[in-house]
């Protein structure tokens, strides 16, 4: 079966959603939607045996064959893992949303269309083997996530959050497109599978670092890494099912997927390792540190997501170390890749359930402000249990899945200190230290989230609604997910064999040839190792700090708001708006004289620049004709009358002097033996001077003030510049005539072939009559224009200006 088409199933289903919503309004639309991810999940789960044995499946659908662009669905361990996450958590989220969103008050048809669109986009990202279609789906996630965040579009905060996430992720997406194009230029293919074997040659290419940085920009913006994480907390204005789905389990992991997928291509480079591991680890610490500042339940979770994504990212970066050691199976470097994938599964599971709990608390109490909440333990026992399981897993406590991944995370970070390339032996010690600090804060905010919501004293007077347990339907999904959290702890090796090892194989194809070779056996009790002591330290210090949280939490508020990244983003947006506005106002003055100055300056600049650069300047006086007496006389008259125009005080003098210029030109035509031109010039000059006089006569009284043209140095400079430029060009072109003139042909054929004697006229009506045809058309249009301007005055009111 060509399963590439399955990617589009949600999108096709989305087409029917509005219809179902209108026709079957009494049934919650979500029930129809639920079918889609469930069927997809079942189908994709049936592909598991293939990947467990290390195999893969490819299905292809040509889109633009001439440009070598195709939809290629490539299923291996990594993409199948993500596919199962997307469809599985998708199904749970849809189930949850059925009870969360009211079918009468909400615009469900919009919601589910966006959600299904998003599902197609995510499936496309994780299955695409083709870079361009991968980018297509990547942007589709940006767009559908924009629509989902702005779902309650009447709220200001929603629109702000949607726009912010759009701006940042699309910026990253475009950078990534650049990286992809560079990759395809380097490897001469769009297929990731074909790029991977070329990795050793690619690293020597000039574009390699560029491609690496650009692709990472895309991954970092999507996966909310420092400093691009700022869109994620603002995206919490979305409905909670959206936050649970997009901003914890799927979309924010698209960047992780991309990094994991391209690890075989880039991991050879030290830059990659430092960037991915370093940025990831810093994000992990930063996110966990600032999670404690948040007062909003979903805000805490957003920062926690940022932190956990950073953790996974740093593990992915650390896994690159495996490429530089021999016999990886004997070293501790093998843990990083495994831990990354393992924690990715864990995180998707527990963070999904935590978001759903936050949604339930919001739904049943009417607020998400942690300062108003408290003492809900006895009122909402099931939610409390689920929240506790999720949070303890997040903190890394046994007996929950998070414990195992936290241990492996510490192992991997410790192993980096032993790595002796890329100056890791000097700075490598930072990794376990920062990782440990980040874990301490993770521990504190996990407790903060659970106990400040569910423990303490109940404050019913501050809650908009009386708190009570959520309906059973809303609890199904979080309870199921928290069960998974516990199950993963008890059967980690089943998860490892089924899901993690095939994914690691896809991530490190140079190191392993089949999933069985990855000899990692996860054990809850792994002996008195350094990481166990580190965990004990985390728990002890974390518990102490949580106990005294009230005393030092206020110190967060000392940090000025003006120095945050959000303030930076706001000011960049503000500056680019007003700055661009101010810039265009600076030169768009609305005065034609300014625009003329720009145009003429550029003419001077471009023409003189070209003359200079191409070394085209030349003066050659050898072919010039001798200057006669009459020429000199007429020239003096011409220059004199031109200067008179410039310096005349009255406009009338200017017009007369202009006439004098025209008649001198006619005289020049006479001297240079152009009788037709002379005749025409004389008559036309007469008519135009008459028209000038007419215009002068009708000038309004106010502007008839006799005043000399004001001297402006800039104008003079530009005018002289243009004059000099044109003169130089004329001299140069005259001095370097490349080809003989065509006029000999006319001379020879004018009588024999055209039957005429006046070459000028024969050229006008015969050789090149085409020009004349359109010149008389121009005349006709001018005449019609004058008629319409003078005769068609529809409004007599002068104050009715179109701009007013």
């Amino acid at each position, binding site marked *: 079966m060509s399963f590439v088409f399955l990617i589009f199933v949600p999108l096709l289903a989305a087409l029917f959603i509005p219809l179902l919503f209108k026709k079957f309004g009494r049934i919650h639309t979500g029930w129809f939607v639920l079918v889609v991810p469930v069927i997809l999940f079942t189908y994709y789960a049936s592909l598991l045996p293939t990947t467990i044995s290390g195999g893969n499946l490819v299905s292809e659908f040509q889109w633009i064959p001439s440009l070598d662009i195709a939809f290629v669905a490539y299923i291996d361990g990594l993409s199948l893992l993500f596919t199962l996450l997307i469809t599985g958590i998708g199904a749970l989220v849809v189930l949850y949303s059925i009870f969360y969103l009211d079918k009468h008050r909400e615009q469900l048809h919009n919601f589910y269309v966006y959600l299904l669109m998003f599902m197609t986009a995510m499936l496309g990202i994780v299955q695409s083997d083709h870079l361009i279609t991968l980018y297509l789906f990547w942007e589709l996630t940006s767009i559908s996530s924009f629509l989902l965040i702005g779902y309650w579009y009447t709220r200001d905060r929603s629109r702000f959050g949607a726009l912010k996430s759009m701006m940042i992720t699309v910026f990253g997406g475009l950078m990534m497109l650049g990286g992809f194009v560079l990759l395809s230029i380097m490897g001469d293919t769009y297929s990731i599978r074909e790029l991977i074997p070329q990795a050793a040659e690619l690293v020597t290419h000039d574009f390699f670092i560029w491609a690496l940085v650009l692709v990472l920009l895309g991954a970092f913006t999507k996966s909310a890494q420092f400093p691009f994480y700022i869109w994620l907390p603002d995206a919490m204005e979305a409905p909670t099912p959206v936050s649970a789905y997009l901003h914890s389990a799927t979309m924010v992991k698209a960047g992780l997927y991309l990094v994991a997928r391209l690890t075989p291509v880039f991991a050879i480079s030290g830059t990659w390792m430092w960037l991915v591991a370093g940025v990831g680890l810093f994000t992990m610490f930063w996110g966990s540190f600032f999670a404690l500042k948040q007062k909003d339940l979903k805000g805490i979770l957003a920062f926690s997501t940022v932190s956990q994504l950073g953790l996974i990212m740093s593990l992915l970066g650390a896994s690159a170390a495996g490429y530089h050691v021999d016999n990886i199976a004997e070293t501790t470097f093998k843990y990083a890749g495994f831990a990354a994938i393992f924690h990715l599964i864990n995180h998707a599971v527990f963070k999904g359930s935590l978001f759903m709990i936050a949604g339930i608390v919001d739904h049943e109490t009417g607020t998400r402000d942690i300062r108003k909440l408290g003492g809900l333990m006895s009122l909402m026992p099931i939610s409390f249990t689920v929240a506790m399981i999720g949070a303890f897993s997040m903190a890394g406590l046994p007996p929950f899945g998070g414990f195992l991944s936290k241990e492996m995370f510490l192992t991997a970070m410790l192993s980096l200190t032993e790595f002796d390339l890329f100056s890791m032996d000097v700075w490598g010690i930072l990794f376990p230290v920062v990782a440990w600090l980040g874990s301490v804060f993770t521990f504190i905010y996990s407790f903060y989230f659970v106990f400040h919501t569910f423990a303490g004293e109940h404050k019913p007077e501050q809650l908009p609604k009386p708190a009570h347990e959520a309906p059973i339907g809303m609890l199904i999904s979080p309870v199921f997910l928290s069960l998974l959290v516990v199950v993963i702890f008890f059967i980690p090796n089943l998860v490892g064999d089924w899901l993690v090892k095939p994914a690691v194989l896809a991530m490190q194809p140079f190191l392993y040839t089949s999933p069985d070779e990855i000899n990692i056996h996860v054990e809850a009790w792994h002996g008195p190792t350094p990481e166990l002591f580190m965990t004990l330290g985390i728990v002890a210090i974390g518990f102490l700090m949580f106990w005294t949280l009230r005393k030092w939490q206020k110190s967060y508020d000392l940090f000025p708001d003006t120095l945050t990244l959000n303030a930076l983003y706001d000011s960049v947006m503000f500056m680019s708006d007003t700055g661009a506005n101010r810039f265009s106002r600076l030169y768009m003055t609305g005065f034609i004289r300014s625009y003329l100055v720009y145009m003429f300056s550029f003419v001077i600049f471009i023409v003189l620049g070209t003359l200079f650069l191409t070394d085209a300047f030349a003066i050659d006086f050898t072919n010039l004709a001798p200057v006669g007496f009459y020429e000199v006389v007429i020239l003096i008259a011409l220059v004199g009358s031109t200067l008179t125009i410039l310096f005349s005080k009255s406009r009338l003098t200017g017009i007369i002097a202009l006439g004098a210029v025209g008649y001198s030109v006619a005289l020049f035509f006479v001297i240079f033996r152009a009788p037709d031109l002379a005749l025409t010039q004389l008559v036309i000059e007469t008519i135009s001077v008459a028209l000038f006089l007419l215009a002068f006569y009708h000038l309004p009284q106010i502007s008839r003030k006799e005043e000399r043209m004001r001297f402006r140095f800039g104008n003079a400079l530009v005018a002289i510049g243009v004059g000099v430029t044109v003169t130089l060009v004329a001299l140069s072109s005259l001095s370097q005539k490349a080809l003989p003139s065509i006029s000999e042909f006319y001379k020879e054929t004018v009588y024999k072939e055209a*039957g005429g004697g*006046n070459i000028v*006229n024969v050229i006008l009506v015969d050789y090149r*009559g085409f020009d004349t045809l359109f010149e008389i058309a121009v005349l006709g249009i001018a005449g019609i224009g004058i008629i319409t301007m003078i005769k068609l005055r529809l409004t007599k009111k002068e104050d009715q200006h179109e701009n007013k």
Partner: protein
Amino acid sequence: MRTNDVMLQTATKVVTFIILMFAVHIFFAGHYTPGGGFVGGLLTTSAIVLLMLAFDIETVKKILPINYVTMTAIGLLLALATASASIIFDVPFFTHAYDYFDLPLFGKTSLHSAMLFDAGVYLVVVGVTMTIIQTIGEDE
């Protein structure tokens, strides 16, 4: 405020015909000697303008009841038709034809289809310049 302009009007009556004749001459001679449709048209216009100066627009309109816009259109059509007539004879657009004929009264004369095109130019030039002058002159 109009003064006695008998001299002007009388001179105009004579000069106008001289100018018109000169214009026609320049137009027909254009193919062999300086001149042609453009200058010929402008000279014709100047003759009519002289009439307008000596008399007034209404009088000239009565003397020459011509719609100059129509004249422009006819000129354009004539030019275009001359240019495209060659297509009928299966030669490229704008191919002219000429030959020598023995006409009564004129003797051996060359007739050239370019002349028809030039006539189009002539009509357009007269039509447009007259349109402009008349429109501006009548405007209050």
